[in-house]
Each structure stands twice: as C-alpha cells, then as structure tokens.
C-alpha cells in the first residue's frame, strides 16, 4: 500500500471509530431518516401509489446520506478546530486535502447506515418489498454515490478552514438539495429554470443511479455523471484546500485563539 493510501485508510478507520461514539451523528444518520421515511410512506400511501414505496424508501435513505455528509463535512473542520487538531492536520507533511479526504469519505460512508436503516424500517413496519432489479449494480451505484458525496463534502469542508462559522451554511444546504435532487419527489414538478441546478448536484444523479438499479432503468449514465461530478469536486477540493490553507495561515484562522 502506498503512503497516501495508508493515510486514507487509517484516517477512514479512525474517523469511523470516532463517529461510532458520537450520539449526535448516530441520531442524524439513523433516527432522522426513519422519521423522514415514515412521513414519506404515509404520504405515498395517502396518494394511493403503494407501488412506489421502495422509490420513497430510497429517497428517504438518500436524504439521510446527504444530511450526514453535509453536517459531517461541515462540522468536521469546525470540530477539529474546537478540538485543537486542525493545526496538527495542517502542520503535518501531507497535503491538507489528503489529510481530510478520509474524514469526508467516512462521513458519507456512515450515511449508508441511513439508507440501510430506512430500507429495513420500510420492510419491517410498512411491508415494503425489497426486490432489487439489479442488486449488484445497486451496490455499485450506492458506493459510487457515497464516494462522490464524500468528495463534494470535501469542497464544503475546505471553505470552513477559512471561515470559522461557515458551517452555519450547512443548515441552508440541507433542504434545498433534497428538493433539487429529487430525493423527496420528482424534479419534473419543479420550475424549468431549476434544472441546471439539479444537473450540477451529485445527489441528483446518485439517486437516479440507485433507483434505476433497484427499480429498473438505465443506471450507467447517471452513475457516470455522479462519478464525474465527484472527480470535478476532488479537483476543486485540492485547489481550494491549498488556497484556503495559505489564506488561513495569513489570516490566523486555524485556531480558536
């Protein structure tokens, strides 16, 4: 294993250990999606469309994945700053983007609990049949989406190096991305001018890939888009981390004091 791969793997494992002991994070990852899923199931049932329950379950699960990515990545830098470890990460020899990449991916990975919890909740409580058209492709689509969201989270995290209170932005980005990505209902119900916004969002393509793999439909196109956007996010993050690290050293925003 190369040194960079070892850093990513070790950081990923360590962050999973830490997240596993965070009650706030577990609440966001597991309990919140179940609440959303319950509301969604009743809405879809009331609409007389019982065949779309799996569609609703996947959407609700992805809402949890997005929330954990957003709050995990948003809070990551601020939490490191409070804990006094941000300066240690910046002061370490590897590029900062490499130091924080495993943290961001671990946040998104933990979001998969949300999806699994939602599906199990739907199966046990609402009797949602878990019949996946392409089970293997579903796993691939889910993994690709989680990776891409992790990379998108990394871009968000980079801005928090410079701005101490930028994580307040996390709250603004949760609901709009749910709606613009079609996690709750189809984006065809939204005004036409919102389409470019949806196309630029990895969750939009991610949920399409996941739903198509589970319910039937073209999966590779949306999967290619979500991975492509993830790659773009990785390039942007490597640039913003370098730039914001320099500015943070100039403006002294790495520590609380």
């Amino acid at each position, binding site marked *: 294993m190369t*040194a960079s791969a*070892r*850093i990513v793997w*070790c*950081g990923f494992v*360590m962050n999973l*250990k*830490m997240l596993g*002991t*965070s009650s706030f994070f577990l609440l966001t990852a597991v309990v919140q999606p179940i609440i959303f899923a319950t509301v969604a199931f009743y809405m879809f049932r009331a609409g007389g469309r019982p065949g779309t329950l799996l569609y609703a379950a996947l959407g609700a699960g992805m809402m949890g994945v997005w929330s954990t990515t957003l709050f995990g990545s948003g809070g990551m830098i601020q939490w490191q700053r*409070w*804990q*006094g*470890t941000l*300066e*240690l*990460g*910046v*002061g*370490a*020899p*590897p590029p900062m983007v490499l*130091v924080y990449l495993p943290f961001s991916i671990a946040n998104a990975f933990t979001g998969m609990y949300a999806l699994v919890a939602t599906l199990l909740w739907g199966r046990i409580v609402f009797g949602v049949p878990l019949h996946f058209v392409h089970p293997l492709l579903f796993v691939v689509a889910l993994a690709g989406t989680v990776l891409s969201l992790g990379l998108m989270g990394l871009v968000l995290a980079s801005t928090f190096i410079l701005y101490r209170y930028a994580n307040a932005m996390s709250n603004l980005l949760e609901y709009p991305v749910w709606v613009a990505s079609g996690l709750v209902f189809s984006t065809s119900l939204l005004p036409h001018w919102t389409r470019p916004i949806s196309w630029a969002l990895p969750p939009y393509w991610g949920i399409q890939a996941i739903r198509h793999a589970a319910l039937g439909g073209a999966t590779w196109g949306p999967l290619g888009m979500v991975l492509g956007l993830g790659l773009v996010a990785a390039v942007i993050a490597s640039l913003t981390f370098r730039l914001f690290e*320099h500015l943070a*050293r*100039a*403006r*002294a925003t*790495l*520590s609380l004091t």
Partner: protein
Amino acid sequence: MAGAAVIEVRDLRRTYRTTTGVVRRRPLEVEAVRGISFAVERGELFGLLGPNGAGKTTTIKMLITLLLPTSGSAHVLGLDVVEQAREVRSRIGYVFGGDRGLYERLSARDNLRYFAELYGVSGKEQRLRIEEVLELVGLTGRDQERVEGYSRGMRQRLHIARGILHEPEVVFLDEPTIGVDPVGARELRQTIADLVRAGKTLLLTTHYMFEADALCDRIAVIAKGRIVGEGTPAALKAGVAEGTVTEIEVFGIDDRAVARLRAVPSVTAVTVEERDQKQLVIVQATGERELTAPLLAELDGVGVGRVSSREPTLEDAYVALVEGDE
C-alpha cells in the same frame, strides 16, 4: 549568526488584522511580534521566556509553518518556513500545552497510529516507535484507554509522544507544563531533559522562570513582541547580580504608593504579589545602597509587616527586563 544554526530568525514580525465594533466595524491591528532575531544551535535547548501575550506562541507558530510572518525571515534546518513549509513540517515536531490537540474519542495508541501514518512512520517501525515513545512518556499500560478519560498530565505526556514519534531533529514545545500539577510537571521536565540528552534541538516557550532556569542552555526574554534580553540563565542573572532585592510585606498598598516606590533613586522595578490578606512588594534596585529606610518612608500610611533583602534570582532578572521595556 553562525551558519550552523538549526533555527535562524531575522527581524521576524507578525501583525494580526481584525475588526472591532458591532455596528460600525473598524479595522484593528495588533503587532504580536515586532522584529525579533535569534539563532539556536544544534543540540541546544533554547527558551523563549515571557509573560502572557508577549508573542511566544505567535513566534513558535510561525516557525512551525502554521502562521505566515508579516515580514522578516525564519529558517529551520536551513529551510524557509514560508517557501519550504512542507519540507520543514516533515523534519520538525511540536507540542502545544493545554488540554486540546488530541482526538478525544480515540485511545492514545490510535492517536499515535494516526499521526505515525501522517508522518510516514509505517509498518514494523511504527509499532516499535509507538512502544518506545509510550515507554518514554510513561503511558505504557494506559495506551488502550480513550484520551477523554486522561488527566491533564497524561494528555501532556501524550502530546510529547506524538510530537517526537517520527524522530524529528527539532522539537518545539509551547508551554508544555501549563496547568499540570507539580509532580506531573517535574516528570515532564525530566522527559524534556531526556530529549536534549538524545541530541534533539529544542525551542521551549514558558513563563515559569524556574523551568527556564533548570532546563535551558540559553534564554531570550520576550515582552510585547520584542526580545528584551538574551543569554544563558547565569548571564541573565548576572545582569542584576550587582543590585539588591528588597521584599516588603504590606497591607492595602495602592497604585500611588507603588508609583512613589518606583520614583526612589536607583529602583529599577517594583512588583506587587497578592498573598491572602496582605501583599508582597518586591523592589529591585541597582548598586549596594541600603534602601530600606527610603522605601519605608514612601510607604507612609500603609501597614507594613516583615522587610527582608536577598540575592537576585532569574525571576528578578526577568522582571527587570520586562519592566524595563514598559
């Protein structure tokens, strides 16, 4: 400055720019470091001694590449801390004082494993080094416990273990014994002395005089962002050795009386320490002249207790240097 200096600082300055005011925000500039220069030789333990807010931490953060200097230059192991930050980072270690700076929910061993990976210590070497540093700082047997349950002294020892894990040539220690109980602080000082014996070059900041006196080969006294004195502890003490120190116990002294004491001829510094219901006034003066009578004359109306004279200490040298800058 000698070419062999491991740390070389020239006219280093750092200004913080911020804003003040709630409605109408006005720019505010604070000059934390105002043109300091010093050099540290290989294998030396160099102390930066100064009161809170003197610029010690700002200086150390510039040297470990966490802050950019406003002007001036600093080199560590011949590497520019601005232009060659990545290379500097891989060859230095640093230890901050205080509770923070560790992953609380991880064990000490996991913290060390993570930082070992960041510093390129991997595989078998990593396991050996972790055992070595745990042994060195006395945390063997407690390494599987989560850090959140550690005492302050244990955290501080773990900080040191993390800072030297990758065997850096230079170690920066920023107030490593702050807030640690006396026994823990003594153990930490022993660990620091062991690092010097192991051939490391150390830069230590502290505001504890006895710590600087006991550990440092040379000291620079820093006050309000400027170096106001530099030399060996013995040389700094010698700077005030010609003078006398008079200690006067008083009850309810006010600022005007302190000002009158400062105005007495040959007095160089006056400090007041609170001691329960009373205060201890420490008066430093040049020359050998007996000052008890003129000092007591200025304390008319103030309750006076015990009066004594003694030899100057490093603390007196420090106070004289810091007060002399005011």
